[in-house]
């Protein structure tokens, strides 16, 4: 009886290995041959792939799994290509109803796509977040009309859901946890980030403008109705990375971006800062890009709810040392922090803070060795016209 069992077992294992190679070839061939306007269906099942799947130069194509937990593409042991799924130079693409796991690099990267929708897609690393994990889970870059809806990102060593150098963006109804940054909007124009949950990240939601990129700046970003809680994960980003500087316990952070409205968020149990508004100088990186604008301005923080536990801020990392040795709040850590570094070309930075529940504030006077740090919020009690909601246009 036993030899028969062994033979059967070997036969099944061998055939499943062959089947995996077949599936890889089948899907990649579909990606290459897909006619514009077609639907590429990936069947239900758990598949191990060793190479990236790349869709290039297509129009009006849908990549559809059988369900987020039903179609699982695992890239553990991947030897070719950094991403799981890559889409480039395309128009009107939808990726839906599948999970991409354990890629060497980014989970799903879409670049130079006009009209990209991620619907019910999960990108995850299943090792609880490590520096060797890929950088981004869902990564549209240099795209327009981006919709990320009902998606999840878990375990990324940079940002779970990251939209970079793009225009017209909506990120909603999504979850990001166990990443260094949960959700990040970087150097992008016109973004609405709402009704998401960002928890157990190092930093929940980041809105950044960084130097040395092709799209030099961004702005007009609304972050609202999000539940941003318990973002106290250790920062496991690789050392030289900018996101490696975000301190454990960060709820929302705005770095250098202009025209940002943060409202109606519940920012709960982030031990270091509920909402930080800082310039690029806080990173202590040199700025070589002559056209870069490092100072945030036109920031409107209103109607958020803040809560934090009665503990000290983090002492980990460079920023942690700042809190421990220079700021020394003890357990009385303010929810909203502004670095106070002045822009000699613009005295009125138009930072308004109003009507937040449990509001507390500090200007840490970082440009002046923290000498005149102040919790006086009066100068920031103002309002601004709300930013216009994002409207995604469908591309013809």
């Amino acid at each position: 009886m036993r030899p028969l069992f062994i033979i059967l077992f070997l036969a099944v294992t061998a055939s499943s290995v062959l089947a995996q190679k077949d599936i890889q070839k089948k899907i990649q061939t579909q990606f290459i041959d897909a006619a514009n306007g077609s639907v590429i269906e990936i069947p239900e099942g758990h598949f191990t792939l060793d190479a990236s799947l790349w869709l290039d130069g297509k129009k009006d194509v849908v990549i559809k799994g059988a369900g987020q937990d039903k179609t699982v593409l695992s890239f553990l042991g991947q030897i070719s290509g950094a991403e799981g799924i890559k889409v480039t130079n395309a128009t009107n693409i939808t990726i839906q109803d599948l999970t991409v796991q354990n890629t060497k690099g980014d989970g799903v990267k879409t670049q130079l796509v006009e009209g990209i929708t991620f619907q019910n897609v999960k990108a995850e690393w299943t090792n609880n977040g490590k520096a060797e994990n890929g950088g981004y889970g869902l990564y549209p870059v240099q795209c327009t009309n981006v919709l990320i809806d009902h998606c999840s990102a878990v375990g990324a060593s940079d940002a779970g859901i990251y939209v970079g150098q793009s225009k017209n963006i909506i990120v909603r109804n999504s979850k990001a946890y166990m990443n260094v940054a949960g959700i990040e909007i970087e150097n992008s124009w016109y973004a609405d980030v709402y009704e998401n949950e960002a928890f157990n990240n190092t930093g929940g939601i980041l809105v950044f403008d960084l130097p040395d990129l092709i799209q030099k700046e961004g702005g007009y970003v609304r972050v609202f109705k999000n539940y941003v809680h318990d973002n106290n994960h250790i920062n496991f980003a690789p050392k030289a990375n900018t996101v490696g500087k975000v301190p454990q316990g960060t709820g929302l952070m705005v770095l250098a971006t202009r025209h940002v409205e943060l409202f109606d968020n519940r920012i709960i149990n982030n031990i270091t800062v509920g909402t930080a508004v800082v310039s690029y100088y806080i990173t202590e990186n040199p700025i070589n890009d002559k056209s870069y604008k490092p100072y945030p301005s036109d920031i409107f923080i209103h109607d958020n709810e803040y809560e934090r536990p009665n503990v000290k801020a983090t002492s980990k990392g460079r920023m942690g040392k700042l809190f421990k040795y220079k700021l020394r709040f003890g357990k009385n850590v303010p929810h909203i922090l502004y670095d106070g570094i002045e822009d000699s070309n613009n005295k009125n930075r138009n930072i308004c803070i109003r009507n937040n529940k449990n509001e507390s504030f500090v200007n840490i006077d970082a440009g002046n060795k923290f000498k005149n740090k102040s919790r006086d919020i009066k100068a920031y009690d103002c309002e601004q016209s709300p930013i216009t909601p994002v409207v995604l246009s469908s591309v013809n």
Partner: protein
Amino acid sequence: MKILVGLGMLVSLFSFISLKENNTFQRKDKLSEYGFFSGNLASLNPAEGILIYNLNTPLFSNYAEKLRFIKLPQGSSAQYNDSVTFEFPIGTVFIKNFYYPFDFRKPEKGRVILETRLLVHEEEGWTAYPYIWNEEQTEAIYDPAGETKSISYIDAAGKKITTPYVIPNKNQCKGCHIRNQVMVPIGPSARQLNRDIKYENKTENQLKHWVESGRLSGVPDVNAIPKLAVWNEQASGTLNNRARAYLDANCGHCHNRLGPASTSGLFLDITEKDPAHLGVNKSPVAAGRGAGEFQFDIVPGQPHKSILVFRMNTNDPAIAMPEIGREQIHKEGLALIEEWIRKNDFN
């Protein structure tokens, strides 16, 4: 009856001639159907009109060796320029065969051919067609999906090597073969072709041979033709020449101002003169994990603090450079770049 047969033969002869002169490329499912090679397909014996060529410093492809051929349409020639690949007429086909000798020390023992890549100049532009060889080495079949194979061979030092070998899929061709958003050949440029090679009857400079066989026009005086050093031939150039040749061939097709890596600001093609853009004390822009723990692309005098070396010295697909085309580290190329970073005067 005889007249009919005669007429029939004339008609078919006429059609045959027309087909031969027809430049419209028709992709075949099997490599043998093109008639590029005479005799046994695996001997890669070029048929009439198919010309072998090679390059001063070729791309490293996982230690695979390559046999390159060009087919120009009858009576046509390429147009010379001194900086990028020549202007090749519609109908040109490049044929690149990748193989491993069983034993690198003893090529006479035979080889296994893994893939043949065609790059064809069609009406709408260049198109890539990948073919995968069967185990029996009797045929190669068109396969746009690519494949991962495991290959074993004895290397030049007598050591047995087993490595994965990734045959790229059709989309990946564009990953490197692109300039200004358009698909292009990479190898056949003046500086790469300017060398002596052994033809059937004699050894001759390739460009001279191309001109004399009517394949190349517009060539200036031989002294005005640029020549790339051979990366591993000391006599062919200084350390700087050879390192720059290596970077040009392995990196420059992406890392140039018009290539897919233009957003990095790191330019490694032969024309780059600015040390900052060459990577000296340059911080990466969006390398992510690729930068490791290092701050600068090139730290003069310190190869092991330089990101260039870090990315050449790994197989991790999220870090390794080049992104496509190698599954092993090129030990000898790495040694050249390390030496260059250590000794070169970058000012």
